[in-house]
């Protein structure tokens, strides 16, 4: 057993961290938050150029051909630095779906474009929970008609992978009959867009079973998002710890009050549990182990919890200033919610974990 990343993998992580510390600044993220940019262009370009975003895409399709473990570490840094780029849409979801379900021609055509950043791709693979009746999306003949109501990165995407009934459908967004409407969101650093299709040319991803492929892609995304969540949670805990050492009340550093110390110790504990579950998920993902569904769900639930708690308590422990627009606390509060619901809630994943455990105990 060896439960750690290799030195080479850590080197890549360090390089990404250094780059993001310079480019994914609070100011850069706020450009997107305040609607002055659709995403952080410089950050995105750098991630693409370093091959970091395409770490898990095979070289034959224009990727860096490193692997999932590397992509996990990139994701952790992305989370630490609150990147406002289409990493999850393009690389955890769309590229993965094409890689797993696409024809050779589809892979040859689309993956190099995604890997090279020529094209942003987005995906909606279906979710257990919903509020409104599913928007009527119909795939008939070779065209798609209807609305996909709220896609992350839908505004800048050139390609979408959509679950339509029992099929996964690939739509070139440069095609005819596509229109877009921005949708307001709780985390404007990751804008949502509705995509409308009117007899837009589209094609199937010919995998045997859409549901199986979608589940597998979502498991992988759950692991990768867990790394982003752990990165974000660790960062907001550090910021909170530092603030608690500076700020004084009742003649002491507030970080010396045991109520605060214990809260931070609890957040730390939640993050470390989430981290080891994420590592376990990373191993299962990279080795295609049969444990993946269980490990991915465990990573998803614990990381979602850890980030939400860290972000909520991060504001609380900062006091009034934590509630201001100027502080970054709310960026984590928003991002924790975004990452925690993007591919289904903590509760839905907990149910999935329980299903796996019960199956195993049968």
């Amino acid at each position, binding site marked *: 057993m060896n439960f750690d990343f290799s030195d080479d993998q850590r080197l890549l992580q360090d390089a990404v961290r250094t780059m993001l510390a310079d480019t994914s600044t609070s100011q850069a993220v706020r450009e997107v938050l305040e609607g002055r940019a659709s995403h952080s262009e410089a950050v995105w370009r750098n991630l693409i150029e370093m091959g970091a975003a395409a770490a898990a895409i095979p070289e034959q399709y224009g990727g860096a051909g490193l692997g999932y473990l590397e992509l996990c570490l990139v994701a952790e840094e992305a989370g630490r630095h609150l990147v406002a780029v289409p990493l999850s849409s393009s690389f955890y979801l769309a590229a993965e779906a094409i890689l797993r379900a696409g024809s050779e021609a589809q892979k040859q055509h689309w993956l190099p474009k995604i890997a090279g950043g020529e094209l942003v791709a987005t995906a909606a693979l279906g979710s257990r929970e919903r509020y409104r009746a599913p928007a009527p999306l119909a795939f008939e003949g070779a065209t798609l008609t209807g609305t996909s109501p709220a896609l992350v990165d839908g505004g800048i995407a050139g390609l979408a992978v959509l679950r339509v009934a029992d099929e996964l459908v690939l739509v070139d967004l440069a095609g005819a009959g596509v229109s877009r409407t921005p949708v307001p969101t709780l985390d404007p650093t990751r804008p949502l867009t509705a995509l409308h299709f009117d007899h837009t040319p589209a094609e199937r991803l010919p995998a045997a079973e859409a549901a199986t492929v979608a589940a597998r892609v979502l498991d992988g995304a759950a692991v990768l998002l867990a790394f982003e969540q752990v990165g974000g949670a660790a960062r907001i805990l550090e910021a909170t710890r530092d603030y608690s*050492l500076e700020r004084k009340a009742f003649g002491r550093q507030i970080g010396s009050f045991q109520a605060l*110390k214990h809260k931070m110790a609890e957040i730390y*504990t939640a993050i*470390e549990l989430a981290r080891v*579950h994420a590592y376990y998920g990373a191993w299962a993902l990279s080795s295609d182990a049969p444990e993946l569904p269980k490990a991915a769900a*465990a990573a998803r639930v614990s990381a979602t919890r850890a980030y939400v708690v860290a972000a909520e308590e991060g504001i609380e422990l900062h006091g009034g200033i934590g509630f201001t627009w100027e502080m970054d606390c709310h960026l984590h509060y928003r991002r924790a919610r975004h990452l925690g619901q993007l591919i289904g809630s903590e509760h839905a994943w*907990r149910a999935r974990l329980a299903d796996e*455990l019960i199956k195993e105990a049968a």
Partner: protein
Amino acid sequence: MDFRDTPEEAAFRAEVRAWLEANGQKRSRPDEVFGEGLDEAARLAAAKAWQAKKAAAGYAAITWPKAAGGRGGTAMQQVIYQQEEAAFVVPGMIFEISIGMGLPTVMTWAAPELKARFLRPGLAGEEIWCQLFSEPGAGSDTGGVRTRAVREGDEWVVNGQKVWTSGAHFCDYGILLTRTDWDKPKQEGLTMFIVDMKAPGVEVRPIHQMSGDSEFNEVFFTDVRIPDAYRLGPECGGWKVMLSTLMQERLSVGGNLPTDLHAHLIALARKCAWDARPAIEDDRVRARIADAYLQQKGVELVIARGLTAISKGKAPGPEMSITKLVAAKAMQDIAAFALELAGPEGLIGYEALGGDWRYMQRLWLGAPGARIAGGTDEILKNVIAERVLGLPGEIRTDRKVPFRELEHG
């Protein structure tokens, strides 16, 4: 990164499994307990026999050096052994303090003759050890001990009282924390000794615990004589000796969390009904099963990460405190939920309700102790906050004051 056994680990696992199958007794049900139906004397004798067998085969303390009677093996091998042993009916709560805390302290701090005298018999289970730190006025604040040791030539004369001493009623030796200088600040006036629990003047009185058992005791010392050769570490150096012991203790409790509690929950949930449906079909029940897994597996993985660090030559630090913090509370929460599954009937003792419930009922009654022993949840959070996160220490008014001038309570 790889979770599977390396070829060497797989070979060791196979060897261990073969030995256990040839020498041990497999559990007939998951919650079968060692020595059920035996009286304490017979249970103890059976436990000692098992420990002797284990020691002879080199499995009693795998990570100990060969010179001390161990195997000179790796921490990973120790874990593999424990994983395999979990399927067998073996004694619990008897040798843990000997092997995990008492004897390692002897190994680190005692003179060579004493090591030669104590390590092998201890390992073979011939002598059992306890840990005599806590006192009525010194628990979390271990530095507050008042049991007094006064030097008389080559001997020390000990008077005072210890409390919560696990296993003292069947132990042969103990590591004893005493105060030898009352004019120094509290942590600087302590000295550690080996004490013979059968020596004149040592009196052990079992304490009746909330679980109904009597696993821990009060221990009284009246003019007990200890040779100076039995001192562990320097005079007034007891604090450092104690810290080395406690770090071991926190790790070992975390390592004791069973990893299959969710499976016990699943089995019980299949048998109970909620709203006229099997409880296992209820989403609230399923959610708790998932959470139980998250905590247990999390602790297991944190330990795995620590082991990887050890195998790369790094020492796992105070981060490992989270294992005991999470494990003890997880036991309490999971057991409480298991009892709730049966509704009002869950209040009926397993003796009447059925043997299936024994495990969770005993776990529930034992868990409050696990959250206290070896450092309470609050103390562990202080450790994490201060030593991992670098937050300021608690305000201490007792740091520089001679111990005799401090208030006690």
